[in-house]
């Protein structure tokens, strides 16, 4: 059978970067085709060419065996090609429904007026099919990243495309939502839609992919069937070598000093009486479903949001944190889950983003900046985290999503805080680099830092955490030891209602 889409010998360069060289992909109707590769391998670029956003420098694209020119997003749409972008592309001031149907609004009164009722009904229908409980009239601005991502997915579905590109759709989703998405994918597949699926979550391959195409450094490496290719094989195709997985070590911290202690933290309905502590050298994982309030807790501790009540102690001494700068001064760093809005100055270069939280350290007399030292620091992390960038002067905006995430991590590593809170640190990061980051977190812990990792990926929480705090609806429903099972976590993560409140009692397993 002829492929639905065939991309051949695709070439694409940006100033100073060859993003694609001899890249190829063929997609059949009714298949899920995973596109895999390290951060910066060229996956997004390849798909943007298919979606009419970038113009290719060379090669050809065949649709149903016929060559096509795709010069604009509009043309791609007309050809039945839809895309869910890696970076959210929403209008924050518009509602979910308005976002989904922008440019395709239902009209009334002979096309003169918008039919807002039908717009909302149409959106609600799609949400319902996704089992998504969301009022179509909600402003995007007020949604969490995860829900914004769901809106993007709903939008893509509304086009009823024959080819659907999903660029890391699950990066911001939790398990329940991922399950929902996979059910949708299965339905689309049955309808004969061809799906290109990009993800760094290896476990997803086996669940939904039919075939896997691997890219490395912008080049085509190979296409293999998903079912009978071991994940290790795919990983080695991606990184060019085999990866050894480090077993988590679960040291006992019961006798180490408590570094950070949080008591009676409250903020509206989002945080209810949360208290816990983290010891020197310990990694405390935070698990929970979307909206459980983990991010809120982290932001409140960090002083990014005001809190209604609650005390924070460092080494037993109460610290007054009103603004992030107070937190950083007290030795607490927070890596936000939303890198684009809260993590990066995307218009600035790699170097300046890496040093952003430590800039004072590089300022000499008269505020003069020591660029050479800044360059050294940035270069160190570019090497250590394998950040793919032409130089430390490249604008961050031009890096691939995963590499942007690494820069945020580098920023906080350089700042060297005693307590580091990582909110979804590996979002969008490739397997190889993920491994590096896990190693790094472990090393930081061994050096005596107290670390909090918030992650929606249970395997990640399980693999990293020395203890696991679980939240549900703004409450801390329990703290489990490192070896806990997924079932135990899920139990606490769904423990609703007042009874679940730990009422400031040290949670199970919490250090006394």
């Amino acid at each position: 059978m002829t492929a639905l889409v065939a991309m051949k010998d695709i070439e694409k360069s940006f100033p100073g970067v060859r993003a694609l060289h001899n890249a190829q992909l063929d997609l059949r109707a009714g298949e899920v085709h995973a596109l895999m590769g390290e951060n910066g391998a060229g996956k997004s670029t390849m798909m943007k060419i298919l979606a009419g956003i970038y113009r290719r420098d060379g090669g050809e694209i065949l649709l149903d065996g016929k060559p096509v020119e795709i010069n604009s997003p509009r043309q791609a749409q007309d050809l039945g090609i839809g895309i869910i972008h890696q970076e959210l592309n929403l209008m924050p001031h518009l509602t979910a429904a308005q976002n989904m149907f922008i440019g395709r609004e239902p009209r009334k009164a002979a096309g003169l007026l918008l039919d807002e009722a039908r717009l909302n009904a149409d959106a609600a229908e799609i949400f319902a099919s996704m089992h998504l409980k969301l009022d179509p009239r909600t402003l995007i601005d007020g949604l969490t990243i995860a829900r914004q991502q769901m809106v993007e997915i709903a939008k893509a579905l509304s086009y009823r495309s024959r080819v659907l590109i999903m660029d890391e759709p699950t990066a911001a989703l939790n398990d329940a939502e991922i399950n929902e998405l996979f059910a949708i994918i299965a339905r689309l597949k049955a309808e004969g839609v061809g799906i290109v699926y990009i993800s760094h979550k290896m476990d997803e391959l086996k669940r939904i992919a039919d075939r896997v195409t691997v890219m490395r450094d912008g080049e085509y490496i190979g296409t293999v069937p998903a079912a009978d290719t071991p994940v290790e094989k795919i990983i080695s195709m991606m990184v060019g070598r085999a990866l050894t997985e480090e077993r988590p070590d679960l040291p006992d911290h019961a006798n180490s000093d408590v570094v950070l202690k949080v008591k009676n933290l409250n903020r509206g309905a989002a945080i209810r009486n949360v208290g816990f502590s983290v010891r020197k050298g310990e990694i405390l994982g935070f698990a929970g479903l979307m909206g459980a309030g983990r991010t809120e807790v982290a932001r409140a501790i960090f002083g990014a949001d005001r809190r209604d009540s609650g005390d924070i102690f460092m080494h037993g001494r109460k610290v007054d944190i009103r603004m992030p700068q107070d937190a950083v001064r007290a030795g607490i760093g927070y890596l936000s889950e939303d890198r684009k809005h809260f993590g990066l100055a995307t218009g600035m270069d790699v170097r300046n983003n890496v040093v952003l939280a430590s800039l004072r350290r590089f300022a000499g007399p008269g505020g003069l900046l020591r660029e050479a030292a800044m360059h050294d620091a940035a270069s160190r992390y570019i090497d250590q985290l394998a950040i793919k960038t032409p130089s430390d002067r490249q604008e961050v905006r031009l890096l691939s999503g995963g590499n942007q995430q690494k820069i945020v991590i580098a920023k906080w590593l350089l700042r060297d805080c005693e307590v580091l809170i990582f909110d979804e640190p590996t979002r969008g990061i490739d397997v190889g680099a993920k491994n590096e980051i896990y190693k790094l977190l472990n090393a930081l812990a061994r050096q005596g830092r107290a670390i909090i990792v918030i992650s929606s990926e249970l395997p990640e929480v399980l693999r990293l955490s020395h203890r696991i705090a679980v939240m549900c609806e703004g409450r801390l429903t329990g703290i489990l030891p490192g070896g806990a099972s997924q079932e135990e976590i899920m139990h606490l993560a769904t423990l609703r209602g007042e009874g679940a409140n730990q009422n400031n009692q040290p949670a199970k397993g919490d250090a006394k």
Partner: protein
Amino acid sequence: MSATASTGIVSMGSKFSGAHRLLAFASLIALILVFSLASPNFMQTSNIIAILQATSVNGVLAIAATLVIITGGIDLSVGTLMTFCAVIAGVVLTFWGMPLGFGVLAAILAGAASGTLSGTFVAKLKIPPFIATLGMMLILKGLSLVISGTRPIYFNGTPGFTQISQGSLIGSVFPALPIPNGVLILFLVAIATSFILERTILGRFTFALGSNEEAVRLSGVNTDRWKIAVYALAGSICGIAGLLISSRLNSAQPALGQGYELDAIAAVVIGGTSLSGGRGTIIGTLIGALIISVLANGLRILSVAQEWQTVVTGSIIILAVYTDILRRRRL
């Protein structure tokens, strides 16, 4: 990007937009109260009408500016475009002696044409709106002088012309309410523009462009065309302003106009529309324009020395916006 910081606050505001809109009147009401208490001459029908009349031109200009600002742009040419349109009406009515309707049409079309040009500069040539409309501001200013022969054009040959702003349709029906047509037109323009913004596809794109133009483009929309349409609509509204002012002055004053853009933009921003785009209301702009004229009128009625009027106006503008911010934060 820099707008991100405020999203938290604003989004909450929009949650309570009903209450908030009501409260946005607060600064205005407070001002009116203070002036009413301070002088018996303030709260009189004739003075209220004078205030409304004084608001009409700036109000209409501010409505035009609101549209462009919601797209994330700025329009510095509203003032001189108004004058240009007035001059065009003068040419058609006085120089060519054509009937009233043609003059009205010519002014509005001239506005639309100029807006289309600005919009094209911005959308197609990617010239920053500040520069495109600054250029247009100067071009139109010069052209008004050239076309008019640097002299006011009087409309004495078209007796109906002064009625556009100074007559009172309402007053002829309800003699107790001699509200001048200029004020009526301001409210009609406000209602129509509000309707376009909230109910039509053009309005939807106006907000969408200001919110995230790239996202709109990636959705396959011809953003350029819509942006040009917004500028053209804004331009034709400036044409209406041109009719209002020249009808009020019974003359097209070719040198007037520069500097008016600042008052118009100030009304927009006082009214809560964000200069970074994506957010704004016509009712807010109306309130902003009213705050400015109530302030000017009230301080004059109180016989505040002119140099102090300026100081007080500056302070109250800051205070009014601050009060609004506090109120929204508290909600």
